[in-house]
């Protein structure tokens, strides 16, 4: 396919329009992903997550600079939220990264969540494959501003950095489940602000409590701030870059990368099944009017959702277990 060659040769227009196809769920995008999928898995995928305004885009920008100094090419997928009312979105992460706009070794694409609630957009997964196939060494995925439970990035990234800022609550916050658990590295940004060293100590104490770390990797905690002077900030972020490289090295040297790849593969398969099995089923129920019929039944209390679902499953999934 000509498109595949153009993606592999790094043609920017093709790549950006391909990602648009993925976002818009254009059928033709699937054929392209099928072709490139076997050639992916080469890029180091880094997840950056944290609360709105914590400094994710600023860190992305500095990471890009530092990776470019290492001679690595970088792709960025920056996610911002879609309006639940209008479907519109402000994609503003680029503001911090525009100095790389003309660098041919950097490709930056903003994505809107379009209803996804896990901190990413549904298109992220396949878009990573495209950036990987276009030859980017590093793919940085910046999540939406997250709260406590948007952890989808754990299924996409090899290394996850959680960006925190001082003043976000007491020590109990540091031992909560969710986002705090998925971090491979912690970055305390705005470290010039009051409470930074307190947060540092609290994080270290929380990490002390964990009895085992996978592969012996204890998530490092880095303090950074972008107030004093840009060079110092860049140097500090280069330490983050080194830690990310180190983490990826450990993943590769141990069986954990395989484990993570398997977790990723599972999510990709589940999403594909959703698209191939569940969505067409709902569509056909909708087209035949059966869906509305069932809703009437429920509203009139003449049936219950479980019995209706079992009836549908009985009719459509007959023999589904025989496929293997």
């Amino acid at each position, binding site marked *: 396919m000509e*498109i595949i060659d153009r993606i592999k040769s790094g043609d*920017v*227009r*093709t790549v*950006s*329009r*391909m*990602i*648009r*196809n993925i*976002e*818009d*769920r*254009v*059928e*033709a995008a699937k054929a392209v992903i099928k072709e490139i999928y076997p050639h992916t898995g080469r890029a180091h995928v880094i997840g950056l997550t944290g609360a709105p305004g914590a400094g994710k885009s600023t860190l992305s920008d500095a990471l890009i600079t530092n990776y470019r100094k290492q001679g690595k090419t970088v792709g960025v997928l920056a996610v911002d939220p*879609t*309006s639940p009312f*209008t*479907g*519109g*979105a*402000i*994609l*503003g992460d*680029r*503001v911090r990264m*525009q100095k790389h*706009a*003309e660098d041919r070794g950097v*490709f*930056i*694409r*903003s994505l*809107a969540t*379009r209803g996804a609630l896990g901190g990413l957009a549904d298109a992220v997964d396949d878009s990573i494959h495209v950036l990987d196939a276009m030859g980017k060494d590093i793919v940085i995925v910046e999540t939406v501003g997250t709260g406590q439970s948007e952890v989808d990035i754990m299924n996409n990234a090899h290394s996850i950095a959680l960006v925190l800022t001082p003043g976000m609550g007491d020590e109990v916050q540091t031992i909560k489940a969710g986002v705090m658990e998925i971090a491979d590295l912690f970055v305390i940004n705005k470290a010039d602000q009051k409470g930074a060293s307190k947060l540092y100590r609290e994080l270290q104490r929380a990490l002390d409590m964990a009895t085992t770390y996978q592969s012996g990797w204890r998530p490092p905690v880095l303090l950074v701030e972008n107030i004093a002077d840009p060079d110092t900030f860049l140097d500090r972020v280069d330490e983050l870059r080194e830690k990310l490289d180190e983490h990826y090295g450990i993943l590769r040297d141990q069986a954990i990368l395989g484990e993570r790849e398997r977790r990723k593969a599972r999510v990709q398969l589940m999403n594909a099944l959703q698209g191939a099995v569940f969505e067409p089923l709902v569509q056909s129920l909708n087209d035949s009017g059966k869906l509305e019929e069932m809703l009437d039944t429920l509203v009139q209390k003449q049936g219950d959702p479980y019995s209706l679902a079992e009836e549908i499953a009985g009719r459509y999934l007959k023999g589904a277990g025989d496929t293997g």
Partner: protein
Amino acid sequence: MSKRTLRIIVAKPGLDGHDRGARILARAFRDAGYEVVYTGCHQTPEQIVSAAIQEDVDLIGLSCLSGAHKHLFPKVVELLKEQQAEDIVVIGGGIIPKQDFQKLYDAGIQEIFTPGTPLEEIIKWIEDNVQPREELA
């Protein structure tokens, strides 16, 4: 396939740092259901065009209050042509004297909106004149 969403970039070329107007427009476009890439102030035409292509936008909205529009706006269209991306529609706004309009139209700027234009009018123009591009096949 879901309905294609219009993607727009709102950009401020040149040296003026007054982006209130650009942000109001970005917000209005968001409320109209578009995906709006915002790149901030002090952008070169090269940066704007590169971002527009990476973001696969259908429309570039340029805002300029410094008086340099006669140079900066046509430059954006020119660079788009160089990249074979002239299918991206370019409109402009800001402090632009009436006598400059024709020169900008001739350079390929499709429409110009000056201060005081109701937001609905701009959105109506976009609805009438810009379609999300064809899918890549």
